[in-house]
């Protein structure tokens, strides 16, 4: 990491050693947001006063002799669907404009307990539905490597905040790739933990059987520190798992020697950009140079993952989003009677993609179609999970590109929802199977970052992070920084 842009681990070390203060680090990052975010539009809310107050508390505790937290003074950006008491949560939607939640998400509370400083809430596709951050009701976030292109989504604001140094870490959520895909397209690291690893308490639900909170950072070491802070059982989320959380950073030193990396070659035969494929092959060579061994695996049902995902996720979303009805919070459009108020509020409050998914999800759950679509998709989900169980008998991790192409142009796919959904082909299988996934900066194609994805056994994030760290010792892709002034490359 360059001197000018220390990462989370280095910031925490300097704050703990009293070489700098949490307040000074926070001010630097707030200044950088003020200077850098115009034109990129990563943030929906900058929580400057709250951040400085929090930083002063961290500094006072250290001055008073308290042991510094593992993330002491580290500025973090939080996707705008994780609640923070008293701070607006919009989910990128008009229907929640002005809403201030009365509680704080467990993942955010745990980061703050570790000494982290929340500098703001980041832009996202409305209710996390999208792969480009173009579906926000508020603004379009731009890719810092080329402002004519999307940053990915739905956690696009979080990825941009980290890749440009406006925050050292960020939280995102990943229902079908929404952490890994923007991390890939912005040239940073993103981890989707195992389903059940991180509490979903205080996280606005999209598809409850798929949603998972995770960190984005510039190095695997930074992401390991954040993961250690946020993972672990929480009685406020009945799906959170009573599985021990290892010291992920301590596990990094073990390296990649002797680990087997499975490659599902037949799944990668079609539709992958030639430059992305070349970067992926180079990454496999780099992993071999780090001591890992590649083996071929098969995921016979993975080509059906997008179809399966868009049935399961929209069905769950249509149910979850029933709560936005103009009664308890958010927008209400007045009407003469209750049914009219529901319909008008939801029509005015939701954007096109959210409505499209509510309609699709309601359709696949409706009488006459439930068995053919929803039930069958749940069965195919079982087949996809079994594919991974088979693969993990031959290897510790499965590798594939994170996305089939580098960042696409703003507006390029908005008219064709199916083309946008197909962007998720390599990320949705992990959510359906409930397994962890890590996206790593894997080089560049025509100046645009591409991601290498590693998928692991349930609750074995440690091995993903180990291999990812070994890869970052072999490569320098993660040290590249986007240009300070990135107009379109043409």
């Amino acid at each position: 990491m360059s001197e000018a842009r220390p990462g989370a681990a280095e910031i925490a070390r300097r704050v703990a050693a009293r070489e700098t203060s949490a307040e000074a680090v926070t001010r630097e990052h707030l200044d950088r947001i003020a200077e850098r975010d115009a034109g990129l539009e990563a943030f929906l809310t900058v929580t400057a006063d709250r951040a400085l107050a929090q930083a002063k508390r961290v500094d006072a505790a250290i001055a008073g002799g308290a042991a510094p937290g593992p993330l002491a003074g580290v500025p973090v950006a939080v996707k705008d669907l994780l609640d923070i008491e008293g701070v607006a949560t919009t989910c990128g939607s008009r229907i929640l404009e002005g809403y201030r939640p009365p509680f704080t998400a467990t993942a955010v509370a745990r980061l703050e307990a570790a000494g982290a400083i929340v500098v703001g809430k980041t832009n996202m596709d409305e209710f996390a539905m999208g792969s480009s951050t173009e579906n926000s009701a508020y603004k379009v976030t731009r890719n810092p490597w080329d402002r004519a292109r999307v940053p990915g989504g739905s956690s696009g604001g979080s990825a941009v905040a980290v890749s440009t140094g406006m925050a050292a870490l960020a939280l995102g959520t990943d229902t079908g790739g929404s952490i890994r895909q923007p991390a890939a397209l912005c040239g940073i690291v993103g981890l989707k933990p195992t389903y059940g690893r991180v509490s979903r308490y205080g996280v606005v639900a999209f598809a409850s059987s798929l949603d998972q909170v995770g960190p984005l950072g510039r190095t695997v070491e930074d992401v390991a520190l954040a993961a250690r802070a946020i993972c672990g059982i929480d009685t406020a989320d009945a799906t959170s798992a009573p599985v021990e959380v290892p010291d992920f950073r301590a596990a990094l030193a073990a390296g990649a020697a002797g680990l087997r990396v499975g490659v599902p070659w037949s799944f990668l035969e079609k539709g992958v950009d030639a430059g992305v494929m070349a970067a992926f092959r180079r990454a496999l060579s780099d992993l071999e140079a780090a001591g890992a061994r590649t083996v071929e695996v098969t995921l016979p049902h993975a080509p059906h993952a997008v179809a399966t995902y868009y049935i399961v996720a929209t069905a769950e979303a249509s149910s979850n989003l029933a709560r936005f009805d103009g009664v308890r919070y958010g927008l209400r459009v007045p009407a003469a009677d209750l049914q009219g108020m529901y319909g008008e509020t939801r029509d005015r409050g939701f954007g096109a993609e959210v409505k499209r998914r509510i309609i699709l999800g309601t359709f696949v759950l409706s009488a006459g179609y439930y068995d053919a679509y929803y039930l069958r998709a749940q069965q195919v989900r079982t087949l996809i999970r079994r594919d991974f169980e088979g693969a993990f008998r031959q290897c510790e991790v499965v590798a594939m590109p994170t996305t089939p192409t580098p960042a696409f142009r703003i507006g390029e796919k908005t008219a064709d929802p199916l083309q946008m959904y197909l962007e998720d082909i390599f990320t949705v299988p992990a959510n359906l199977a409930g397994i962890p996934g890590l996206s790593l900066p894997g080089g560049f194609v025509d100046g645009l970052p591409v991601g290498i994805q590693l998928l692991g056994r349930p609750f074995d994030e440690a091995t993903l992070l180990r291999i990812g760290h070994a890869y970052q010792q072999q490569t320098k892709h993660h040290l590249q920084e986007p240009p300070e002034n990135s107009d379109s490359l043409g």
Partner: protein
Amino acid sequence: MPPVTVETVDHVARLARLSLTAEEREAFARQLDQVLAYAESIQALDTTGVEPMSHAAAHETFREDVPRPCLPREAALAAAPDAEDGLFRVPRVLGG
């Protein structure tokens, strides 16, 4: 499967309590038809005897069933568009 029509979208929109514009109804019918045609691929798979997977949770975590403090009523009502006497207020439910 028969193609998705505007009437299908209307029926589903009623179930989902969504009022849609004419343009939305037509666009959604066309786009849903396209997405469902793509999703036809899963109909050809043999799923005989395959258990449906409703979630990936390996565990269910239950806390002790003991009373504990919850959100105060004022906090729960604070974000409501309309509240009165500690209750959420809504427009008329039955036709007048």
